[in-house]
C-alpha cells in the first residue's frame, strides 16, 4: 500500500512538472527531485559465518543482496513575499525496502541476543524494526524565515542546517547538526542529506570594516529529542556497527532495552554558539565556540536489572544512555598560493575538553551480604523482601580532553594527457585526534582490559595498561581506541564531455596505532599501515539534460581487524546506482 502511494505520488509530481515550472515565475520557486538509489553487496568473502556462540562474525550480506534500496521525493520551495523576507522549506519523503542485512541489527527497543540461534522470526523482527524506525520518512526537513533586518544583519529562524568548519568530509567544527547515517555510511553520502536539521535562530552580522562576519546560534532544542543527536550507529544494521562477539558481554545481564535519555525540550538544554569568520591579509580564518551536546556516542548512564533470573540465569535489564554536554572551541585558517603552486592550504583545529567515552563497566553479579546494596548495585525498592528488588548500577565512562586537527591541500591541476579540457582537482587531507589526561583514570577501576596496550613498568616488565578505554567508534561501547588517531584522505575528480561525465575517487586510510610500541617515538611503522583500515570510493556521475542525474560507483572497504575503525565495514563492499529526476 505504501509503495502504491509512493509511486502514485511520484507519478503525480512528475506529471505536474510543467505546471511546477510555471510556479517558478515571480517570487515563488518550487523545485525538487525524485530519486531511486540502490546498492548491492559484493564481497565474496562474506559467508554468513558465526562464532561458536552463534554471534555473527560476518556482517553485511551475501554478494548480490541489497545494501540499500531507497526512494526519495524531495520538494524545495522558496518564497519571497518582500524584498527583505524570504521563506525556504524542504520536504523529504523516503520509502526504502527492508534489508536482509538488518537481521542482526541492535535496535534499541529489542531484546539483546545473548545467543544467536538465527531464529528466522527473530531476524525478521529485527529487519522489520529497523525498516520501520529508520528507513521511512515524511519530514519537513527545513522550514525557515530569512529576514534582512539591514543590509548587514540577517536573521534566519526555523528548522535549518548550519555548517561550520572548512573540512568537507571531517566534522571538526561542523558540530551544529547531528547526523543520521542509518541508511548509508556517511562518507558515501552528501552531508546535506545526512544532517538532521534543527530549529534554531541564526543571526549573521556582516562587519565589512573588520572584513568578517559574526554568526550566532541559539538552538532551543524544541525538535523531537531523538533528532537532536546523531543516530547511534549501534542501533541499525546494514550500515551500523556490527554486534561484537559474546566475549564482550561477560555479565549476568540480558539487555532488553537501550533507553536513550535524550536532552529534553527544556530551555536549560539549549545550545548556543558563535563563529567569527574573517579575512586577514591573504588568510581566511574562523574562530568558533559552541556550547552543545556530545552528539555521539551516547554514554551508558545506568542499568536497571530485574532481581529475577530467567531459565539461563540472566537478569533482564534496561540500559539507560545519556547525552552529555560538550563544549567545542576551534579555529581554522586557509591560504591560497598563487600559480605555479596554485594550491589552497587549509588548517582546522577543534578542542573538546571533557569528551566522555563509554568504557566497559565491571558490574558484579549477585548481592552483598545484607542483600540490599553492594559496591555496585543499589536496590530500588528498600521495602521489598530481601533479594526481591530491582537493582540499579551506575555505569562507567571516562573523560578525555580531545584535540583534533586537519590539514588539507587542495589543487586544481591541468594534466592534459588525462584530461585535455578540464582540470583535475586533487585533495589530500590528514586528520589527527589526540586524547589527553589518561593519568586521571583510576587504574583499579576497569578490568576488562584493552588487549592492545602494553605498558613498561619500572622493573622493565610489561603489563596491560587498562586505562586506555577510549571508544573511538561512536556508540560501540565495547571497542577500544588509542590516544592518537590518524586518518589520511586523498581524493581526485574531474569532468569530461563538458560536465556530462564526472568521475571521482576518494581514498581514506586509518593506520592503526601500534599499541605494542606505545611510549616509543617510532609511532608510525610499517606494521601500523599493514594493520590499518580504509576505503576506496569511486563515483561516476552522469548529467543528462537539465533533469536526469545518474550516479554509479563502487565502495571498497578494507580493514585488518573486523572490530576496529573501518574494519567494522570491511565485508560491506558495494556497487551502487542512483537515478535522480530533478525539476
Amino acid at each position, binding site marked *: 500500500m505504501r509503495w502504491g502511494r509512493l509511486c502514485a505520488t511520484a507519478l503525480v509530481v512528475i506529471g505536474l512538472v510543467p505546471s511546477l515550472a510555471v510556479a517558478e515565475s515571480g517570487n515563488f520557486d518550487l*523545485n525538487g*527531485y525524485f530519486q531511486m538509489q540502490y546498492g548491492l553487496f559484493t564481497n565474496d568473502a562474506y559467508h554468513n559465518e558465526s562464532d561458536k556462540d552463534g554471534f555473527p562474525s560476518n556482517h553485511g550480506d551475501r554478494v548480490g543482496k541489497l545494501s540499500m534500496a531507497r526512494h526519495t521525493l524531495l520538494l524545495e520551495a522558496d518564497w519571497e513575499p518582500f524584498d527583505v523576507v524570504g521563506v525556504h522549506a524542504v520536504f523529504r519523503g523516503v520509502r526504502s525496502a527492508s534489508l536482509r542485512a538488518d537481521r542482526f541489527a541492535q535496535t534499541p527497543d529489542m531484546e539483546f541476543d545473548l545467543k544467536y540461534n538465527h531464529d528466522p522470526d527473530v531476524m525478521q523482527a529485527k529487519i522489520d524494526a529497523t525498516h520501520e524506525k529508520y528507513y521511512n520518512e515524511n519530514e519537513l526537513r527545513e522550514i525557515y524565515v530569512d529576514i534582512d533586518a539591514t543590509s548587514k544583519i540577517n536573521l534566519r529562524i526555523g528548522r535549518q542546517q548550519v555548517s561550520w568548519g572548512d573540512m568537507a568530509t571531517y566534522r571538526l567544527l561542523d558540530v551544529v547538526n547531528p547526523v543520521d547515517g542509518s541508511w548509508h555510511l556517511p562518507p558515501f553520502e552528501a552531508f546535506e542529506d545526512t544532517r538532521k536539521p534543527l530549529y534554531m535562530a541564526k543571526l549573521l552580522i556582516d562587519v565589512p570594516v573588520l572584513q568578517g562576519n559574526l554568526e550566532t546560534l541559539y538552538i532551543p532544542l524544541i525538535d523531537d529529542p531523538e533528532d537532536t543527536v546523531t543516530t547511534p550507529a549501534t542501533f541499525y544494521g546494514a550500515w551500523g556497527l556490527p554486534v561484537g562477539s559474546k566475549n564482550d558481554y561477560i555479565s549476568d545481564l540480558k539487555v532488553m532495552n537501550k533507553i536513550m535519555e535524550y536532552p529534553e525540550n527544556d530551555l536549560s538544554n539549549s545550545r548556543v554558539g558563535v563563529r567569527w569568520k574573517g579575512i586577514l591579509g591573504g588568510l581566511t580564518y574562523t574562530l568558533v565556540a559552541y556550547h552543545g551536546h556530545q552528539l555521539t556516542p551516547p554514554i551508558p548512564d545506568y542499568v536497571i536489572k530485574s532481581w529475577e533470573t530467567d531459565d539461563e540465569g540472566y537478569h533482564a535489564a534496561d540500559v539507560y544512555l545519556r547525552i552529555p554536554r560538550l563544549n567545542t572551541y576551534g579555529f581554522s585558517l586557509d591560504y*591560497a598560493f598563487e600559480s605555479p603552486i596554485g594550491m589552497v592550504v587549509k588548517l582546522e583545529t577543534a578542542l573538546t575538553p571533557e569528551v566522555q567515552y563509554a568504557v566497559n563497566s565491571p558490574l558484579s553479579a549477585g548481592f552483598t551480604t545484607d542483600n540490599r546494596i553492594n559496591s555496585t548495585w543499589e536496590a530500588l525498592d528498600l521495602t521489598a523482601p530481601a533479594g526481591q528488588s530491582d537493582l540499579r548500577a551506575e555505569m562507567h565512562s571516562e573523560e578525555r580532553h580531545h584535540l583534533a586537527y586537519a590539514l588539507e591541500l587542495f589543487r586544481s*591541476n*591541468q594534466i592534459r594527457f588525462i584530461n585535455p579540457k578540464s582540470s583535475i582537482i586533487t585533495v589530500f587531507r590528514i586528520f589527527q585526534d589526540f586524547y589527553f589526561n589518561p593519568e586521571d583514570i583510576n587504574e583499579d577501576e576497569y578490568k576488562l582490559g584493552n588487549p592492545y596496550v602494553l605498558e613498561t613498568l619500572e622493573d622493565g616488565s610489561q603489563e596491560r595498561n587498562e586505562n586506555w578505554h577510549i571508544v573511538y567508534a561512536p556508540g560501540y561501547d565495547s571497542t577500544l581506541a588509542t590516544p592518537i588517531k590518524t586518518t589520511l584522505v586523498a581524493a581526485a575528480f574531474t569532468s569530461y564531455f563538458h*560536465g556530462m561525465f564526472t568521475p571521482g575517487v576518494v581514498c581514506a586510510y586509518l593506520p592503526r596505532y601500534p599499541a605494542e610500541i606505545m611510549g616509543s617515538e617510532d609511532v608510525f611503522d610499517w606494521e601500523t599501515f599493514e594493520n590499518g583500515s580504509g576505503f576506496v570510493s569511486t563515483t561516476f556521475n552522469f548529467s543528462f539534460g537539465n533533469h536526469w542525474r545518474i550516479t554509479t560507483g563502487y565502495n571498497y572497504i578494507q580493514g585488518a581487524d573486523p572490530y576496529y575503525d573501518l574494519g567494522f565495514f570491511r565485508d560491506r563492499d558495494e556497487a551502487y546506482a542512483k537515478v535522480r529526476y530533478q525539476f
Partner: protein
Amino acid sequence: MTYKKVLATAVALMLVAALATLAGGQGKLTRANWAEAVGFKPDLSSAPAAGEVISAANLEQYKAFVPDGVQKLVKRYGFKIWTKDYESVAPADTYIAATNKYMGTAKTLDPNAHYRKIGIDGYKAGLPFPKPKNGVEVAWNYIYSYQGDDAKNWFSVYWISAKNGIERSEDWTWNYITRGCFRTDIEPMPDIPEARAKRYQYYSVTTALTPLDKKGFSAMYTRSIDPKDQQGYIYVPAQRKSTRFAFGTRGDSWNNTDLLYEDVRGYMGYPEWMTWKIVDKKTMLLPMNAGISHGKDVVKNVYDFDKAPHWNFKGKWEPRPVYVVEAKAKFPDYPYSKMVFYIDAEMYYICVKDAYDKKGQLWKVLVNAWNKSPDPHSSPAPVGTSLVVDLQAEHATAFGWQKSLSNVGLTPDEFTLANLRKLGK
C-alpha cells in the same frame, strides 16, 4: 587702419587657438570626434552594403572583412552575418572627460618583464592610450575600456553539441564592480577607498539559479590591479559551506563550458601575462550595435537551437575599425599557443577571438556581440550575447543574456563572505 588692427587681432587669436590645440596633442576628445581620435576611421568604401547577408555562398567576396574564425563558422556551420551600416560608438561623457583629464599620464612599462610585474604606470582613469602605438597599449585599452563602474546581469548558459543540439542549460546571475579603482561614473571617484587600499580592481560574484543541483552555487572573487591570480571563494550548497578556491589555474574551463576563465569577456587575464603584437589595423565586420534582444523567453529567437549546428545566432554586424592583435602567453602551461583578438578601435571591446591550440591549429572561436547603450551619455554598451565554439570538439557554449543593468551602485560590502553565505541556501 582700424580694419587692419581688427584683422590682425583676429588672425592672432586664430593662431593662438591653433597653437593651443596643437599644444594639447590630439585636442580635446568629444563624443563627436571620439571614434577617430582614439582609433581610426573605418574605410567603408568597399565594405558590404547594409542588409547584405554573408553566407558560405558569398563569403569569398567579403573575406577580407570577416575574422578568420568566423569564416570557419560560416563555411563549416552555415553561420550567417547580417550586415548593417556603420555607426560610431563612444563611451559615456564621464569616461570621455576622464580620458581628457588624464591624457598622457599612463605609460606602459617593460612589456617583456616578468608576468607578475605590473606593466603600466600613471594610469588614473578613462582610456589610457588613445591611438595606441603597439599591441600592449591596445591590450591596456581593452582592460580599461569603458564598462561602467559596476553591473548586474542575468544570463543563461547553453551547452550545445553540433550533432545533438542543446545538452543542458543553466541560469545565473553575475554582479560585479568593474572599477574598484579608476572609476568614472559613480562616487566615490576615482577610487573606492577600500579597493584602493587593497589594490582591488574588480569584484565579482556569480550565482547559479537553476537547475536544482546547481542552485545556490556561488563564486566570489576579486582581481588586483597587480597581475596576480584571482582570489576568491565558492559556496557549495550541498555542503552549505563557503570555501576558498584556487582560481589561478591556467586553462581551467568556467563551469565545464567551452569558455576558459581567461576567455570571459574575451580575455580575463592581465596584459602582463602575454606578449602583444598588432598584426593588422583595418576595417572589418564586427557585431557592434548588434541589436540582440535580451530575455530568457526570446533567446530562441536569437539562436537557431533547432537547426544544426544549433548555435548560430542572428545579430547585426557592421564595418568597424579593428585592431587585430596577437597575444602569446609568457608562461609555458597556457593552453593556447596564441590568441588573435579582433578589438573594436572605438570602444576597445573584444568582439571576436580566435584561440589556437598547442599545435597551432585553430581551436576555439569566441564572439561577443554588443548592443547599443540604452543611454550613451551615461552607461556602457551591454553585451548582447556571447558564443564560444570549440571547432575541434564541434561543441559550443552560448550565453543568452536575460537582463543587464549598469552603474547600479554596488559596493564592496556586497562582496563579503556573509553575503556569499546568504546567496546560498
